[in-house]
């Protein structure tokens, strides 16, 4: 604890400390010394403070999920933060920086030139009386607005409790139903087309719920033959790249000369082979589309028979560390 305190004090001294190295006073000024502008400086400090508050307000509004008109408040706060920042910059440029137009021939290449520019920049700030305070206030405003822009990233997903990401609503023996909730039978599934299905009686909004079902000639099934009764195969409908719905199915009209059947994601054209366990044929997806083992019960209905071949959903940092589980 005391260590943390020491560090905080050290950081404060570093930022606010007066331990400036003594600056050499040049013999001759380039930019005329300006009158100190105490009032303008106060205005700038106030504007920076308000910009900081507006940035912080964005973070607060973002965290308050139930706020009515949240979107409008978000826009108002971040908009105000940028507007105040712009105003502060305008006041600095018009009131505080010493401006002077100097016409001179294009300078010869020399070592002094760089020094001269540094001197001009240094002297242009002669109106500032509390340079360090203004710098800190400006950095504070910029930092808060930056933090406000980064905060929404927290909504992208759970950071620590990632167990939820592996959960799927499929249990062994659960029937497949179509969009209208009707249980699918093996006879319903025809070749050369595709079907979207869900687990019976489960929440369809869950990422593991939607699946795509296609039927291939039994002879064409290359991998996991026992997962594909009568050539019917089922895969998660969520692309393993960015989580879009795999909504495209291409099937050849004349297989001898045309590309073989594939499930394609319309977002970035990741292409998966339904005959080979969802292997990636093309595109940015880094792992195969997770396959579901199927079985046909006595009444001819399709049922889930076991576990997914891999975790369902888009790629994230720990996706390969776990397994899909019910």
């Amino acid at each position, binding site marked *: 604890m005391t260590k943390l305190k020491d560090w905080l004090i050290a950081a404060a001294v570093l930022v606010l400390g007066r331990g400036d190295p003594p600056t050499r006073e040049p013999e001759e000024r380039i930019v005329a010394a300006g009158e100190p502008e105490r009032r303008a400086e106060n205005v700038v400090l106030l504007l920076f403070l308000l910009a900081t508050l507006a940035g912080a307000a964005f973070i607060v509004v973002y965290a308050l999920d139930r706020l009515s008109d949240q979107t409008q408040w978000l826009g108002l706060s971040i908009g105000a933060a940028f507007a105040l920042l712009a105003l502060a910059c305008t006041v600095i440029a018009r009131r505080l920086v010493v401006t002077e137009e100097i016409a001179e021939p294009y300078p010869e290449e020399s070592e002094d030139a760089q020094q001269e520019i540094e001197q001009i920049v240094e002297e242009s700030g002669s109106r500032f009386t509390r340079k360090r305070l203004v710098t800190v206030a400006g950095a504070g405003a910029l930092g808060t607005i930056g933090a406000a822009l980064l905060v929404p990233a927290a909504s992208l997903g759970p950071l620590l409790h990632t167990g939820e990401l592996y959960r799927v609503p499929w249990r062994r023996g659960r029937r497949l139903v179509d969009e209208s909730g009707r249980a699918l039978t093996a006879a319903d599934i025809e070749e*050369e*087309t595709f079907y979207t299905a869900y687990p019976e009686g489960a929440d369809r909004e869950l990422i593991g719920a939607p699946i795509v079902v296609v039927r291939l000639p039994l002879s064409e099934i290359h991998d996991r033959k026992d997962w594909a009764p009568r050539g019917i195969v089922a895969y998660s409908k969520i692309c393993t790249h960015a989580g879009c719905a795999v*909504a*495209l199915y291409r*099937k050849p009209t004349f297989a001898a000369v045309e590309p073989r059947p594939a499930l394609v994601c*319309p977002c970035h054209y990741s292409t998966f082979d339904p005959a080979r366990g969802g292997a990636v044929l093309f*595109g940015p997806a880094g792992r195969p589309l997770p396959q579901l083992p199927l079985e046909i019960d006595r009444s001819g209905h399709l049922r889930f028979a076991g576990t997914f071949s891999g975790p369902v959903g888009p790629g994230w940092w720990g996706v390969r560390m776990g397994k899909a589980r019910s």
Partner: protein
Amino acid sequence: MKLITALACAALVLAPAAAGKDRRGAALYAANCASCHGLNGQGVPTPTPGANGIEGQGPPLRNVGALAADFYLRTGYMPLANAHDQPSRRHVVLTEAEIRALVGYVASLGHGPPIPTPHPGSVPAGQRLFTDHCAGCHQAVAQGGYVTGARVPPLTDATDRQIAEAVRIGPYLMPRFSTKQITPAQLNDIVAYVDYTKHPDDPGGWAIGHLGPWPEGAVTWLLAAAALVGICTLLGRRLRA
């Protein structure tokens, strides 16, 4: 008795005409289709040198029916010079009479579905169905796009009948949809929506070729950039003055 006689006479008169049409269809088939689809529509599974030096190869046409023949001939998809090419919409060389004869002949090769007659239904229902079944490839406003290994055609030139036919047969890499998946009534709705996309309302104003949100955003940014540069120039001039 009189009726039967009349019918018999009519049959005698019409029979040669029908046979003539059939012969014409057979001749057209032999000249334009047989090297790839086989003399009797049995298909040519492996490349086989045929008439006119064409390396023939193609699927069987036994039970495709008038529906498929009508679609492929009226869109100019067939005849196709090279079996490895993706068929695309082209100028139709055959005359109306020739197409009718050829469609009749292909239909006579087996038992296939007849030519459908769609009647455009509800546009909102059609939009939902189109989004579910078609938009993945053809895009939300039917402008077409790509699927790995093929181009997806825009539907701007597709007639109502061709839309109804394509849904059932699934040309080239497109999946086909049975009447169980898309009922005839639902198909009518889809046709209505595709017709609507040919002349959409464009409530937002400038449509920019219906290319979608990304190009629209890019155009907006370009305009905004031009405006910003203009404002900067104006400010600079005032400061210099």
